């Protein structure tokens, strides 16, 4: 019978695969001689956010490999990583967290899943697991208060600072805060925790400045937005802050806005939903759209140029990106900067705890992450990232860092930076107060004692 023949052939194939796997497993275990530091990579390479996932995690993996090749690791400690597919699904990411938690006798140092619901799913267990939750520019905003969440960081900025910066930019364009009274601003967002995250800050600023805030949710995956944009036209909105994710959703937003005649230069995209892939999905109608940048794109930064040279050029073939032209795009650069954070934190941890050249554990890494300092220009130039991200440092109390961004404009082929310098909220103290109030409320509800932070 045919199925019998297939089964018999299949068994030999299975046997071959098992033999291959056995030799691979044996050979890797025999080769461990250099000290290693293990990092997990919880990527999303399939699903609606795969452009973001392949770009960001490609950048992370490329930087880790670059440090190994160029500097022989961090003070001689080789950086190794394991990957797991989360598909941007909270349940899968919890499974990945459990699976990647231990590698041999080393535990993972940090968790950076690039999804706000994914961060929320593990935020309750990172403290007891001694794992740093490095929400690089996303996630639970009030974790910027390091007194309540010592293990959670939000460098370089969080969503409340981002929405405040957008409103600051809007009021500058409108001619001042007093001109904002009576204006209508629409927050068009995907109906998930990620889309709703900036609302508390936005509502507060709307109350203070007197503008009319309309919150319009889009059910995921957001590929159909006709009714929402018609609602925007009916409300005669002045500006739209678009908080979506996934190239399909962004492209749909641009084409639908063009169809109803809403000017693209009055739409501001968010850092995680506004990248080259999203703008290209919108086609020619995407020209003039504003996008906020936390990390600037481009290949002119010395680090990105060097990574491209070491990993991609001359047929080196060591890069993780399947499409090498994506090196230097926004998502890629964000991934690289996230990995720069990990490596710098590891370097700090080794120095602080006198473990130069040896692997560190979770608590030591946490101290190293809290000591991240990009205010020294010489160090930024040495890393090759001067200008790519705002100068900031993390402290015990402030786990956010900078809270500043640049505004970019899509000109049809690439992004151009329209702001002269890194811009933040109009009233950063008010945002910080909101964060601390929310964190203190959470601490009271859950009986958490605040850490004693000097600064």
């Amino acid at each position, binding site marked *: 019978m045919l199925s019998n023949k297939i089964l018999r052939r299949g068994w030999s194939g299975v046997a071959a695969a098992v033999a291959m796997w056995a030799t691979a497993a044996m050979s890797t275990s025999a080769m461990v001689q250099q000290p290693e530091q293990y990092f997990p990579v919880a990527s999303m390479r399939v699903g609606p956010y795969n452009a973001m996932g392949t770009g960001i995690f490609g950048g992370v993996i490329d930087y880790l490999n670059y440090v190994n090749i160029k500097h022989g690791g961090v003070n001689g400690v080789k950086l190794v990583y394991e990957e797991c597919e989360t598909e941007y699904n909270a349940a899968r990411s919890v499974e990945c967290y459990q699976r990647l938690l231990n590698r041999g006798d080393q535990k993972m140092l940090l968790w950076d899943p690039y999804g706000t*619901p994914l961060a929320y799913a593990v935020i309750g267990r990172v403290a007891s697991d001694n794992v740093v939750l490095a929400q690089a520019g996303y996630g639970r905003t009030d974790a910027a208060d390091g007194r309540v969440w010592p293990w959670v960081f939000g460098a370089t900025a969080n969503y409340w600072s981002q929405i405040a910066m957008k409103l600051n930019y809007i009021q500058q364009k409108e001619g001042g805060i007093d001109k904002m009274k009576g204006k209508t601003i629409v927050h068009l967002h995907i109906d998930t925790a990620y889309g709703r995250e900036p609302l508390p800050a936005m509502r507060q600023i709307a109350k203070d400045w007197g503008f009319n805030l309309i919150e319009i949710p889009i059910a995921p995956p957001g590929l159909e937005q006709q009714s929402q944009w018609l609602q925007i036209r009916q409300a005669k909105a002045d500006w739209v802050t678009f908080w979506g994710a996934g190239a399909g959703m962004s492209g749909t937003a641009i084409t639908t806005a063009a169809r109803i005649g809403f000017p693209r230069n009055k739409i501001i995209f968010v850092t995680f939903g506004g990248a080259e892939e999203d703008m290209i999905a919108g086609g020619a109608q995407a020209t003039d759209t504003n996008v906020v940048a936390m990390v600037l794109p481009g290949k002119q930064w010395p680090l990105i140029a060097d990574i491209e040279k070491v990993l991609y050029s001359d047929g080196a073939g060591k890069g*993780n990106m399947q499409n090498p032209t994506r090196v230097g795009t926004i998502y890629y650069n964000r991934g690289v900067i996230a990995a720069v954070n990990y490596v710098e934190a590891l370097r700090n941890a080794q120095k602080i705890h006198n473990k130069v050249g040896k692997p560190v554990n979770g608590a030591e890494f946490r101290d190293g992450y809290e000591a991240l300092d990009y205010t020294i220009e010489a160090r930024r130039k040495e890393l090759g990232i001067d200008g790519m991200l705002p100068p900031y440092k993390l402290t015990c109390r402030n786990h956010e860092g900078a809270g500043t961004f640049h505004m970019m404009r899509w000109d049809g082929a690439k992004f151009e930076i329209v702001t002269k310098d890194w811009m933040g909220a109009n009233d950063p103290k008010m945002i910080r107060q909101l964060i601390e109030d929310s964190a203190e409320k959470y601490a009271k509800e859950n009986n958490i004692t605040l850490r004693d932070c000097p600064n």
Partner: protein
Amino acid sequence: MFYREAGQFRTSYAQDSQILPLRQDRVGMAVLLMAAALVPFVANAYWLSAILIPWLILSLVALGQNILMGYAGQLSLGSAGFMAVGAFACYNFILRVPGIPFIVAVILSGICAALVGIAFGLPSLRIRGLYLAVATLASQFFIVWSLDKFAWFKNYDPAGVITAQKIMILGHDFASPREKYWVVLVIVLVLTLLAKNMARGSVGRGWMAVRDMDVAAEVTGLSLLRTKLQAFAISSFYCGVGGALFAFAYLQTVEPSAFTIELSFRILFMVIIGGLGTIMGSFLGAGFILLMPIFLNVFFHTVFGKSVDASIASALEQIIFGVMIITFLIYEPLGLARLWQLTKERLRLWPFRH
């Protein structure tokens, strides 16, 4: 040779109507239960919290769906919505009723889900088949929407993602994966036993009569209203309890976006692949749908490691999973439970082939 009835005589009605009449079956079940109870001592935290706990919880939900679809024949696509009702009800009971025992909160949240299930099951009295599926689809979207819209359910939390409270039973905090596993195991075993007995008894026969030919069932005196709504209520109870456990023992967050239409479809597939109208099928189907993608992911990363680009590997996993489901349904449309039944029948004759 081993699986024979010879020599086993049943001399009372009680013996004849037990769930496992064969001694070999009873021994096997006892071994399985012992293994299930003792596995936390040998398994590590990953196996417990990422594999066994979600498998048990989703088996419970698939059981609820099987009761509704497999036994009562009512096509329903709202199981994740009822799970969400159970999860949020449990959260609110623990939040607003100080000192309520966890088990009581879980039972009450199941009852809440059952009431919602009865409300959305009313269309089943007028429509059947795919039309009923569409009506229950409405329940899925409506429930998730209203849990998002009315902030009271989330206690006015600004982020919309709430951390689930601790599981406190008799003053002990069941925090570690091992303890959570035992809580889930006990609840699932009790509810499975109840479901098996309901399916074997007159309740189950009423459901199957409605499934096979509801006009004839009505003619013989079965109240369609009561039977169908009872099926919806019991199924939603199971889904609600499963949802509460999903939020408290697995994800540890309570958010509507964990209970999307995709989860409803996955539960539907679990029931279809596992075997409609069987109890064992819910467990087997849940295992297949839940664990096969994880197994494929682990397999690809172990065998191919870094040599194959991870994007290709991830896409391949999804393709292979889809092909497996299709192949499966072509070779055995009645599901994994039928394969198990055929295996048992073969075992009865082993070593003879016929």
